[in-house]
């Protein structure tokens, strides 16, 4: 086992980041022009990092998979962004945001990183307002806040139900400014298919496929930043966009980067339930609905049964026959219990036979009391766009009848391992946003993903990457005609040729759906030893089947969407197995990772701090070898580690 150095600076936690910045190495302006940086991904983390690094004077090449940087899936974040501004005067502080995030993450995140995230959260709001992001405001003209799960204060800033869109367009504006200025060069419709690591161990480039021409292209730089998002689409059905995928991270893993805590996946409690086999994605209903919506199922099984058969309407169930199970189980946090807790509670009720909807896999989220208290107009102003969206998808009117919701795969806390500088164990390979593992532990709180993306991109990576690049100023331009680039491109070409040569009969999506089903059943909301072992076997068999029977029609040159999907699914078929292995090895329940063997008598998650208070950083050892487990021990100096409690304040 390799010793892991997370490079946490000395000193009290509140001073670590300041001390780091005071002592980090800098690059003078003339030398910055000689340094190239590759940024892959243009979501919140990628766009903000590329723009900030460009402003500093570095030469940045930024890559996105869509036709424009503005389409990255950060755009879909709805509810809001946290910051410890304490504008509502309700007792918020940087420490409290840090504490809530560590506790929300079930004491499996790195204290120093999480503190820094809370520390820079306020700068993000300032920056975005300066960019013209139209956050919601009070009649006074000052910024409005609302509450999110896992917090007892109102610290969430928002722009209607489109906060991610507005923040991403802010970052896209900053990026556009730098593209115009010439410091950033944009490459669209490119997908990264390999990382190039030099013989001296440094990351120096990438191989991408041009999705229009089909050609493989080489790009070199002094450092590479991956901001390629999460791998939630391994489940096929998730709230991710269709092209969101895990390949960039997986290829980095296969070139030696550690993959940390892959089993930590967030299942979001408030999504529109699955309705059919042909379904292509799941739609999230913002967690902000839980501010005013009350979640319930019928108390009597026969009522639930009759609702499923449409013999009863939800409105027919009298108040005393409704089970507001979150309020019952978690009186202090109620409907604002954290996501992992809320999702499991919904699953528990549905598994016990109280679920509603045609499949019995749904619970109600009811605005009835809020409408009675505040009036329909107020509710419309707060959630109108969500209510409209729900009606478009389901044909139902949530002013009249409660929403039906069920948990769905949403976010990956796991990702490439990074140190305090957000650098992976491969020198020169940095990872930002959802693609890294660092800040959320085993569960992420609502409105914290976009906070982390922008914190990494605007305020952390521009410093830490500069620290790395300071000794690169004499290296000179990195050539792309080296043996390392040759080899990486040859590997990618071989993978494409092999896929084209299968000439089977089964479409890629069929395999992807099968994989998703295995992952949901065996590596989903609740896991157990036997199920995980069986899941691993099933994934291995499916992988074999894929490479024998997949059909990729057409030509590898030009647009070939089936080939794009096949490359991603081939990687998911490997990544899924690592997730299951990680889940099998972690013999405890923590955050999004719930092992049925490890729970309290009343069904709460039971951690094992003695044996598992570490980051599991998996190391690739070869296709026919088991991955090696490296451990980064987690030390909590500033927060007392306790059992998470959302029952009392």
């Amino acid at each position, binding site marked *: 086992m390799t010793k892991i150095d997370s490079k946490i600076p000395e000193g009290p936690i509140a001073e670590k980041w300041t001390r780091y910045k005071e002592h980090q190495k800098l690059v003078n302006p003339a030398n910055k022009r000689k340094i190239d940086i590759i940024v892959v991904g243009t979501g919140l983390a990628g766009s903000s990092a590329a723009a*900030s690094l460009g402003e500093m004077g570095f030469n940045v090449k930024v890559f996105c998979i*869509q*036709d*424009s940087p*503005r*389409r990255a899936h950060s*755009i*879909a974040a709805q509810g809001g962004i946290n910051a410890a*501004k304490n504008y509502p005067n309700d007792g918020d502080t940087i420490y409290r945001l840090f504490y809530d995030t560590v506790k929300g993450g079930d004491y499996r995140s790195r204290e120093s990183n999480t503190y820094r995230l809370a520390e820079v959260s306020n*700068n993000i*709001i*300032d*920056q975005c*307002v*300066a*960019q*013209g992001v*139209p*956050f*919601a*405001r*009070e009649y006074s*003209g*000052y*910024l409005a806040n609302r509450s999110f799960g896992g917090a007892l204060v109102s610290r969430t800033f928002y*722009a*209607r139900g489109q906060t991610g*869109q*507005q923040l991403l*367009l802010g970052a896209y*504006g*900053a990026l*556009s*400014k730098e593209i*115009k200025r010439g410091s950033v060069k944009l490459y669209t419709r490119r997908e990264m298919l390999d990382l190039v690591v030099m013989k001296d161990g440094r990351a120096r480039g990438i191989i991408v496929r041009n999705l*229009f021409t089909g050609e493989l292209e080489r790009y070199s730089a002094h450092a590479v930043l991956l901001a390629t998002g999460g791998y939630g689409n391994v489940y096929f059905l998730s*709230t991710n*966009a*269709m092209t969101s995928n895990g390949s960039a991270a997986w290829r980095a893993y296969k070139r030696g980067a550690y993959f940390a805590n892959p089993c930590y996946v967030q299942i979001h409690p408030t999504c529109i339930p699955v*309705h*059919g086999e*042909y*379904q*292509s*994605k799941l*739609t999230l209903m913002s967690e902000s609905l839980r501010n005013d919506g009350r979640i319930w199922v019928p108390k009597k099984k026969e009522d639930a049964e009759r609702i499923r058969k449409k013999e009863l309407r939800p409105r027919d169930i009298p108040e005393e026959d409704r089970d507001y199970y979150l309020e019952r189980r978690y009186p202090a946090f109620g409907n604002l219990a954290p996501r992992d807790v809320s999702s499991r509670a919904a699953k528990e009720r549905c598994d016990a036979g109280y679920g509603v909807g045609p499949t019995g896999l749904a619970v109600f989220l009811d605005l009835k009391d809020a409408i009675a208290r505040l009036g329909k107009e107020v509710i419309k102003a707060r959630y109108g766009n969500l209510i409209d*969206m729900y009606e*478009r*998808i389901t*044909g139902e009117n949530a002013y009249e009848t409660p929403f039906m919701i069920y948990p769905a795969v949403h976010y990956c806390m796991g990702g490439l391992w990074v140190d305090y500088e957000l650098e992976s164990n491969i020198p020169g390979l940095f990872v930002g946003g959802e693609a890294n593992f660092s800040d959320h532990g085993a569960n992420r709180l609502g409105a914290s993903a976009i906070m982390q993306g922008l914190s990494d991109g*605007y305020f952390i990576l521009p410093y830490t990457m500069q620290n790395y690049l300071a000794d690169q100023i004499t290296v000179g331009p990195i050539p792309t005609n080296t043996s390392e680039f040759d080899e990486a491109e040859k590997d990618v070409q071989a993978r494409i040729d092999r896929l084209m040569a299968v000439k089977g*009969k089964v*479409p890629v999506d069929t395999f992807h759906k099968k994989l998703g089903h295995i992952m949901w059943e065996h590596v989903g909301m609740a896991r157990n030893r036997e199920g995980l072992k069986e899941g691993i076997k099933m994934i291995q068999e499916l992988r074999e089947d894929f490479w024998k029977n997949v*059909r990729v*029609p*057409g030509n590898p040159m*030009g*647009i070939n*969407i*089936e080939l794009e999907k096949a490359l991603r699914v081939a990687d998911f078929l490997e990544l899924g197995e690592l997730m299951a292995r990680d889940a099998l090895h972690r013999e405890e329940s923590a955050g999004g990772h719930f092992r049925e063997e490890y729970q309290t008598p009343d069904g709460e998650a039971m951690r094992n701090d003695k044996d598992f208070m570490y980051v599991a950083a998996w190391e690739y050892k070869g296709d026919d070898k088991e991955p090696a487990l490296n451990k980064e021990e987690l030390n909590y100096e500033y927060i007392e580690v306790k059992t998470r409690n959302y029952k009392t304040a």
Partner: protein
Amino acid sequence: MNFKLKIWRQASPNDKGQFVDYEVHDISSDASFLEMIDILNDELVEKGEDPIAFDHDCREGICGMCSMFINGHPHGPEAATTTCQLHMRKFKDGETIVIEPWRARPFPVIKDLIVDRSAFDEIIRAGGFISVTTGGVPDANAIPIKKEVADLAMDAAACIGCGACVAACKNASAMLFVSAKVSQFALLPQGKVEAKDRVKSMVAKMDELGFGNCTNTYACEAECPKEISITNIARMNRQFIGAKLG
């Protein structure tokens, strides 16, 4: 449900292109429009044919990637709805559905239903931002902004950059798209510093890229999936005249 489809197929930018007829059967009324195309594509792949190329990504109406011209309407017949949020229950069983790409000179077809909308990115690069750099900005609450003003700015900022306005316009005008960004910043105090240069530069870029003029048909507003208001165009015109006068 069963449908007859007439879909535009075009192998490459220089190919002439043509409508091809397809049929789909046993489609659930709860399926989305794009899921119906997915089902058709799976059938095409199984037959060894080239699937229909189309742009899509988030499938929740916010990324702005999907772009089908359905039965004569960008994003189809339902108001305030992107193609990905359109569901088959909005169509009649047995109906013939005609599907085309956006048609506008500044949005050349790349393949089938995919068009090149990079012209929109170029317009934004011409000035659709506030030139603030990272760091060194005042506290977010330092400048109070009237709620009504912030709300109007948000209405304009809700644009998803899909290009439906251009596809809907007989002149292929991009005025609604450009005016939404100009308005967002013209309304907010942070955007006022660069307001004059912004509007001149974005309008000049729009003209240079070959987008047509606005002749007030209001088709853009009627077809916009985010209901961006035509009043933004009036605001941009005022801004533009003001900027030209000095």
